[in-house]
């Protein structure tokens, strides 16, 4: 039968299977190939906290969603167009993410009575009409995988592990993607170490591709043309990798040794993993005994003249609070990357949330202001972390950089910056004993001098006790304490003089301004675009700088009748805005461990504007 090719602007595919089925690898492979083809894309890995939950159970299902297209792709997609379900549990938990009349590709071999029971099905959804509203393709993925490897004398267990590559190959065929990237990956990963494993995976990948070509169940292939991205050099990048690269870049540009003190915690650990592989950059990574040891070592490294950094997630940030206050008192540069996750307590370790904002801004004893910045997309983690380093060094202050689980594991194409064109990060260490005072200040930034051990004649003592202005000696003087509290606050406020003014996407005044921060950028921007396309006048502002705010933020807010603040928390930025600017902002808050749904934000915008606009 003749196969036809249809061109699509965008597609969202969701791979779902057991956490041992290799769905994250499958998704990542599809992503890399798609990135190299020049599509714009956004991904959402969605996996359980359990490493290997019992096979076939719903709580062991691991998912990976990729939204790609020839248009500007801002989110991983509210719903998917295609669901690849490797077993009944994957179908059970993911069917709700599939749009109506969407496509399901099913590994029919896994739909055994036992697996159906484990997934909670009382009858077989493939037979009972349960899937009548969808286009269902039943494929014997396990059996075909096994056939492809029949003559290799491999264990059933091993063969079972290759079936994700069959699904990948089939999806490559269906969406007209070349196999080269994945072939290269398999050869590099297994080729030398275990040629048989490489051979098996290659065969299965090709078998999946050829299956699509040969059998008659798929009559249409799809094509998604490259996106019209701005000219430049691109790569695909995940948020945690971008954060790690931002740190190395800041280290290189400042000439400061990079020191990361960290304690493993989901979803931040990849920053530690990435940096531990970059020793040729002189990067020192230290897996400490606990979160507190990690930050304290970073503070020690900064004291000694390095770029001290610690990476963590919400529970770790809570543990680090006292040490952050030490860094505030010592007035040393320190970068704290908080990859937020669902909370409180252990919460939802593998799910995303942006509910650490108030902890970042206020979560310490006494008056303890510091700088807080946030990243808006996976690639933006690079810029934000770099900026955090620049501010920390210039203002001699801890900076908390907020990313989150979605940004950390999500991926998108990144226009690679030219290393030579990155902003400078000037550093100066005092050397003159005649003029050195530990708590004297730069009149512009209010930063104190960074005198590092090893400098002749500058021996001095600093500590957590209140400092006397200028000398840094211990002081219990009431007026001095008042002065120092105000000075530390004023120093942080000075950062507002050093950062760009806030820009507005859309008209600078009107009926509605939508304000976001962090990883909700894509969902909000899409909602704004969609409502504008329907004729509504909506302006949008996305904050990178959360403390201090850009100095023109108030002026902007006062020009709008309505302010909407969508957040994946129970209303945190909105509290800061209301408190500081006394504006009657309203929130849109969903705390489901997932990115905000674009369509729901659109509904909220409609509700606010009603029939009065557009």
């Amino acid at each position: 039968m003749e196969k036809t090719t249809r061109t699509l602007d965008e597609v969202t595919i969701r791979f779902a299977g057991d956490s041992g089925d290799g769905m994250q690898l499958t998704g990542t492979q599809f992503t890399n190939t798609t990135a190299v083809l020049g599509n714009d894309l956004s991904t959402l890995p969605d996996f359980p906290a359990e490493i290997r939950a019992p096979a076939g159970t719903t709580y062991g299902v691991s998912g990976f969603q990729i939204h790609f297209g020839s248009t500007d792709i801002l989110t991983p997609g509210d719903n998917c167009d295609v669901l690849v379900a490797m077993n009944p549990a994957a179908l059970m938990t993911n069917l709700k993410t599939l749009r109506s009349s969407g496509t399901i590709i099913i590994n029919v071999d896994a739909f055994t009575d036992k697996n159906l029971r484990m997934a909670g099905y009382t009858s077989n959804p493939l037979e009972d009409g349960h899937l009548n509203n969808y286009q269902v393709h039943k494929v014997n993925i396990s059996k075909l995988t096994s056939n492809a490897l029949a003559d290799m004398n491999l264990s059933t267990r091993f063969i079972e592990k290759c079936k994700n590559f069959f699904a990948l190959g089939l999806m490559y065929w269906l969406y007209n993607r070349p196999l080269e990237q994945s072939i290269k990956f398999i050869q590099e990963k297994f080729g030398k170490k275990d040629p048989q494993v490489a051979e098996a995976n290659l065969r299965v990948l090709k078998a999946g591709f050829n299956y699509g070509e040969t059998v008659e169940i798929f009559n249409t292939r799809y094509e998604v043309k490259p996106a019209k991205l701005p000219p430049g050099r691109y790569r695909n990048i995940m948020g945690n990798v971008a954060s790690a690269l931002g740190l190395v870049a800041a280290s290189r540009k400042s000439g400061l040794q990079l020191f990361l003190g960290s304690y493993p915690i989901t979803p931040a650990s990849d920053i530690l993993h990435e940096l531990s592989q970059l020793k040729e950059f002189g990067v020192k990574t230290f897996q400490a005994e606990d979160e507190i040891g990690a930050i304290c070592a970073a503070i020690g490294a900064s004291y000694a003249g390095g770029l001290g950094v610690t990476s963590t997630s919400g529970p770790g940030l809570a543990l680090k609070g006292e040490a952050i206050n030490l860094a505030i008192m010592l007035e040393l540069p320190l970068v704290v990357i908080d990859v937020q996750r669902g909370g409180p307590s252990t919460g939802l370790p593998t799910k995303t949330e942006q509910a650490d904002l108030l902890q970042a801004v206020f979560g310490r004893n006494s008056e303890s202001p510091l700088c807080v910045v946030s990243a808006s997309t996976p690639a933006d983690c690079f810029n934000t972390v770099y900026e955090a380093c620049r501010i920390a060094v210039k203002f001699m202050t801890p900076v908390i950089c907020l990313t989150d689980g979605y940004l950390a594991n999500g991926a998108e194409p990144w226009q690679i910056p030219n290393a030579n064109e990155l902003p400078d990060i000037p550093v100066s260490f005092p050397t003159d004993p005649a003029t050195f005072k530990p708590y004297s200040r730069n009149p512009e930034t209010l930063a104190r001098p960074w005198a590092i051990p090893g400098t002749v004649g500058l021996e001095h003592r600093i500590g957590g006790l209140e400092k006397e202005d200028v000398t840094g000696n211990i002081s219990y003087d009431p007026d001095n304490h008042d002065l120092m509290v105000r000075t530390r606050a004023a120093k942080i406020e000075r950062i507002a003089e050093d950062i760009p003014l806030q820009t507005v996407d859309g008209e600078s005044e009107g009926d509605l301004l939508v304000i976001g921060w962090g990883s909700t950028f894509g969902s909000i921007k899409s909602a704004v675009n969609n409502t504008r396309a329907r004729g509504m006048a909506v302006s949008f502002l996305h904050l990178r700088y959360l403390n201090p705010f850009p100095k023109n933020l108030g002026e902007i807010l006062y020009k709008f009748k309505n302010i909407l603040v969508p957040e994946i928390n129970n209303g945190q930025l909105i509290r800061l805005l209301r408190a500081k600017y006394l504006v009657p902002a309203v929130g849109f808050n969903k705390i489901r461990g997932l990115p905000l749904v674009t369509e729901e934000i659109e509904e909220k915008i409609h509700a606010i504007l009603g029939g009065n606009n557009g």
Partner: protein
Amino acid sequence: MLFSEATMADAAHTENTTPLKLTVKDFQSDQDVRWCPGCGDYSILAQVQRVFPEFTHKKENYVAVSGIGCSSRFPYYMDIYGVHSIHGRAPAIASGIKMLNPELNVWVFTGDGDGLSIGGNHLIHMLRRNLDIKVILFNNEIYGLTKGQYSPTSVIGQITKSTPMGSIDHPFVPVLLALGAEASFVARTMDRDPKHLQEMMRRAERHKGSAFVEIYQNCNVFNDGAFFQYTEKDTRDDSVVYLEHGKPLIFGKQKEKGIRLNGFTPEIVNIKETGYSISDLVAHDETDSTLAVILANMIHNPSLPRPMGVFLGIGRPTYEESVQAQIAKAKSKKGEGGLQKLLDGDEVWIIQ
């Protein structure tokens, strides 16, 4: 006989460095010392300031790090770089300092509460990693700065502000804890034995790796006399045995008593009156970690004297050396890292 690490390190030390003419005054800061009059900390400060000029490090390379507590005020009184940090965290902060700049000569000053209670975790991990950091732990078996609560080294039954009916906590033996954490150098000394204290400071300084020195320190306000049995004239000779590498364990007013090992159990024998001679006594070996544990456990038999001196001193690669070695290896294998290449990653595509 075994050569102790101390003797060998000593030789290397003198060869490789040029002595600088520093004096006690160079290490005295301009701050008033604010410990209670009569506190054992004064002696420790004096001995440290006395021995530091003997060492050959550049003054600007010394860093003192402390946590919270009476002992942790120590850095303010030394005219060297100092960080008076937060409760219990000094070993972690010191680790970061030493890793970033291995040239620095880093000393941690801590107490039984700071180092063994709130900061116990950081201390044991620093010791096992073997960073070249000296940890001087002032043990007064009480919380002084918070005014008299029991500490993790307070003895069972001790009446304190928070234990009106006596402490029911089994105390830590600091040297046993350090040995358990596999510290490469473990010693004990006393505030009221200045010469021995100085010697232990010298030994700690010579040791390459984590050096843990417990100092019995009298808190004359909240726990006066806790160690008088070991420090005062009329009792100390019969209550203390000094450990010296290669030498038998002998003590007593007339040097008439010795320690013999009966299996793994130390016992006192009189070498003047009974049939035992010096050759029956256990000879100290600083390189024997099993012996170190036996000697440290003597504390559990009140009839035995309290050992003072170096329990263990062994060589093992320092953490910061291993960090540097891996960086050097990565650089020789991959070349000095290039930033643009790193940003580019493995797969670049170009949009015209």
